[in-house]
């Protein structure tokens, strides 16, 4: 290691600071790093303290970076050490145990403390904040010994603490100064619905009460309010807010307002000293939520690593309550004033509420209660100051005419014979599934999968398994647990994508830690999926994770059952040359390829290449990868077209080759096939392709959602266009919209049915702006791709590790 690296000192071992360090490491920032933390633990996920309180997690479970991580990254960690002063003159960090550590750059990330109300009695035994692991331990201990508790503060933290204590068996009253819960995030309607729901769940409320004193001798016995009334309580949690921890900054002579004042690059008033997280004040705002911390950390990490970045401009704050069964969301402005236009819908029977605020027709805020499926979408709309349109209205208010589609709830399973195979891949009969439900009391597809193996391979039988479940369970099916993307998480694809965007999560590891995965490193289902979503969301910065790729994609070739591989070179539009054919023949002979086969998409399969020969075959072919293994564009099948065919009206070979060159290499939710035909005779079979194109005399017809595979489906007519430019723009928009909304492994045939054809048409053909923006986004993503075969040939280490076998 070079001795001349600059010294970076991080003060505060929490999520914001360590998140920044992680980004710096990723960006290759060259620093010798030292971290100081006051708490005795390594870095943990503070937003999950509610789960520790609830008992569903231990402290070990919520640790983000264990001691090994610091070691692996050569970071010196001092836990249980408090920094007392930054000495600017001689650039030293001084600590309470006498250390003096030199720095070139320092980051203050001291977070915040619970704000303890300055009322008489607030220092008595049995009064705690809700902020760190020590508070959490105190609450767990209290629940074992005492029965009545009061939580002062009806905000996010207070409500989570109250619900936790109720779960621990305590009699809990939430004391709130105002008449509305979460008044800084919710309007009156949502607030009263929330209070009703929590009351149902066993939380009591004392609203409009100002606490003036805590009574008792040594230990607290109750609260006295300003109106003279009293509430007995053997244990009190103060959750009235947080106070940026600015003592160190103050003592070191750094400018402090409410928080440590920073500029858009997180620079404090002291040279070379930066600050991120809850302790900072940026443009007059102190944040107490996780998303802004990550956004700040990202800007600072880039700045410190010498990467060009626009400054931090503040965050649109969105809130979600972490209490099971209580879905609350708010973003941006929520209190209506005369200058707002208000769209709202309240359903007292389903207990849902939705409100969207517009200012000059721009979406500036939203509140959701009971059903938060639109939360990610709304957060994005608020963040981008989107103008309201009919399409958006239909989308977010759920008034669109083409709802789900796809899910046919036919009870045909009733008539199905017991011995009929439901899951063809694993040979599972209807009876086996029914037995699993009745004998083991299973209620979810996942449980049935774990027991019988049904749905675990291609997944094509999942709807039938669901129907059988529904048929056997009747009404109780509705109560069955929510299904996540795999058994590692209850979160759906949309929720995961929303959380990644909202919290600025960057790696599968981070996603799984922050979103509380049951199996810390995921499984063969979710790891590839999350890796795809990250790449889709951050096309320019996401570092593809080889270890999260299915074997074929990791090796960039198809594995066969005997462990040999199939190599398919690209042939754009299915057209090759005698020279290329000769080279393919020579290489096939030299490496003893078992079979040369024409694929279903008009390419050449070289089957049976030995693993260690694969890179040599690529090298000697010297052709681009044909992506026969990938979840991306496989082939564009073409007919002969106007170049040679007497019926051809359009140049299908030329157009096919052009489209293949344009879209090759880009990751998609599943494999993707196209076809271009020069005339309506449709010789290249457009009807079974994800995008099928048919030329006619005046232009092109576009079909989408076709499939000839597991679930055959004839493509739907999507639109007609006149020019080649329009054709390319439509293809770009369709592919990008599929990339952004498709579930991982979901083919367009399923996607079209789930989203509804009309919906996709409205999004893409209904708005020129939308279509152009989608096309621009795919062009941006396409600018980042490169040929994996070439890349692997240039990367000797990975090539050796993946392909070579050693003998010892």
């Amino acid at each position: 290691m070079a001795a001349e690296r600059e010294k970076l000192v991080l003060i505060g071992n929490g999520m914001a600071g360590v998140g920044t360090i992680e980004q710096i490491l990723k960006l290759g920032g060259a620093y010798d790093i030292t971290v100081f933390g006051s708490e005795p633990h390594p870095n943990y996920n503070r937003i999950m303290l509610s789960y520790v309180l609830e008992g569903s997690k231990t402290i070990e479970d919520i640790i983000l970076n264990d001691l090994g991580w610091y070691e692996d990254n050569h970071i010196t960690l001092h836990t249980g050490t408090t920094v007392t002063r930054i000495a600017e003159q001689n650039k030293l960090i001084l600590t309470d145990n006498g250390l003096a550590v030199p720095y070139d750059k320092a980051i203050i990330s001291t977070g915040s403390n619970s704000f303890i109300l300055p009322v008489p009695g607030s220092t008595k035994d049995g009064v705690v904040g809700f902020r760190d692991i020590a508070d959490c331990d105190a609450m767990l201990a209290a629940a074992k010994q005492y029965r009545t508790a009061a939580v002062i503060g009806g905000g996010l933290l207070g409500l989570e603490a109250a619900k936790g204590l109720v779960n621990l068996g305590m009699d809990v009253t939430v004391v709130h100064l105002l008449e509305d819960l979460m008044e800084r995030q919710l309007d009156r309607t949502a607030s009263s619905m929330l209070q009703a729901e929590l009351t149902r769940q066993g939380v009591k409320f004392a609203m409009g009460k100002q606490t003036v004193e805590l009574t008792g001798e040594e230990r607290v016995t109750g609260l006295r309010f300003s109106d003279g009334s009293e509430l007995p309580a053997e244990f009190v949690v103060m959750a009235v807010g947080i106070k940026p921890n600015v003592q160190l900054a103050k003592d070191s002579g750094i400018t402090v307002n409410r928080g440590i004042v920073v500029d858009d690059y997180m620079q404090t008033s002291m040279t070379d000293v930066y600050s991120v997280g809850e302790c900072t004040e940026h443009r007059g705002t102190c944040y107490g939520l996780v998303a802004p911390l990550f956004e700040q950390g990202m800007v600072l990490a880039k700045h410190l690593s010498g990467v060009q970045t626009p400054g931090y401009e503040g965050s649109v704050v969105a809130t979600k309550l972490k209490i099971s069964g209580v879905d609350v969301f708010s973003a941006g402005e929520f209190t209506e004033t005369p200058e707002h236009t208000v769209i709202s819908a309240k359903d007292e029977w389903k207990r849902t509420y939705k409100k969207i605020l517009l200012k000059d027709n721009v979406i500036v805020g939203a509140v959701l209660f009971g059903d938060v499926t639109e939360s990610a979408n709304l957060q994005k709309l608020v963040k981008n100051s989107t103008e309201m349109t009919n399409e958006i209205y239909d989308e977010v208010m759920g008034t669109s005419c083409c709802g789900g589609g796809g899910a046919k709830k036919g009870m045909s399973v009733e008539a199905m014979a017991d011995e009929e195979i439901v899951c063809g891949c694993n040979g599972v009969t209807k009876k086996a599934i029914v037995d699993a439900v009745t004998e083991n009391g299973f209620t979810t597809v996942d449980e049935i999968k774990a027991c019988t193996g049904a749905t675990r391979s291609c997944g094509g039988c999942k709807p039938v398994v669901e129907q059988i479940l529904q048929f056997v369970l009747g009404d109780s099916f509705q109560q069955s647990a929510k299904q996540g993307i795999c058994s590692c998480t209850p979160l759906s694809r949309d929720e995961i994508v929303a959380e990644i965007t909202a919290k600025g999560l960057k790696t599968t590891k981070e996603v799984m830690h922050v979103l509380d995965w049951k199996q810390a490193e995921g499984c063969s289902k979710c790891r590839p999926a999350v890796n795809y979503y990250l790449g889709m969301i951050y096309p320019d910065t996401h570092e593809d994770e080889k270890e999260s790729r299915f074997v074929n994609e990791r090796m960039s070739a198809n594995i066969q059952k005997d462990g040999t591989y199939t190599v398919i070179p690209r042939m754009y539009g299915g057209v090759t040359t005698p020279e290329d054919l000769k080279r393919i023949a020579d290489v096939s002979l030299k490496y003893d390829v078992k079979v040369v086969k024409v694929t279903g998409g008009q390419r050449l399969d070289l089957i049976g290449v030995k693993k260690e020969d694969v890179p040599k075959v690529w090298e000697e072919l010297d052709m681009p990868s044909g992506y026969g293994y990938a979840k991306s564009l496989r082939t564009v099948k073409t007919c002969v077209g106007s170049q040679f065919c007497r019926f051809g009206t359009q140049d299908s070979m030329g157009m096919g080759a052009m489209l293949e060159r344009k879209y090759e290499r880009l990751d998609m939710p599943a494999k993707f096939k196209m076809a271009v035909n020069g005339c309506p005779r449709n010789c290249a079979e457009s009807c079974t392709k994800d995008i099928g194109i048919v030329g006619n005399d005046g232009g092109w017809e576009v079909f989408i959602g076709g499939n000839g595979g597991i679930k055959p489906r004839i493509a739907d007519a999507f639109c007609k266009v006149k020019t080649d430019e329009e054709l390319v723009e439509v293809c770009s928009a369709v592919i990008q919209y599929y990339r952004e909304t498709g579930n991982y492994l979901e083919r367009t045939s399923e996607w079209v049915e789930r989203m509804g054809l009309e919906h996709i048409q409205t999004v893409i053909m209904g708005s020129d702006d939308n279509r152009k923006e989608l096309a621009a986004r795919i062009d941006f993503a396409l600018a980042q791709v490169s040929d994996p075969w070439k890349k692997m040939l240039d990367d000797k280490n990975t090539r050796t590790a993946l392909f070579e076998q050693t003998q010892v």
Partner: protein
Amino acid sequence: MERSNREYTVGAVEDFMPQIGRVVNAGEVELAIFRTSAGAFYAIKNHSPHPKGGPLAEGIVSGYYLYDPLHDWKIDLRTGEVQAPDQGQAEVYPAAVDGGVVKVTLPAAVARL
């Protein structure tokens, strides 16, 4: 003498990428060596216990579990035990890191194969 176990040095620690398996032939035995994200090493015979067989080295690694690349069976790398709903047993051998190199011990019967 013939009865004793045989220790093989299969490579340096840094020859193995975390969570990506590597094939090493030790004597006559084809091994798949795995390095977990926590830095632990496991050695398993590079042959799936699935009736259709196939290699294991290219599977997805999560903690100390391996997902079979061809059949998606979940295998405990510590014991070789296949997890429910499937059943089976892969052959695992003791692996250890010693002074920056990875060593695998094969029982005498296997080493002489």
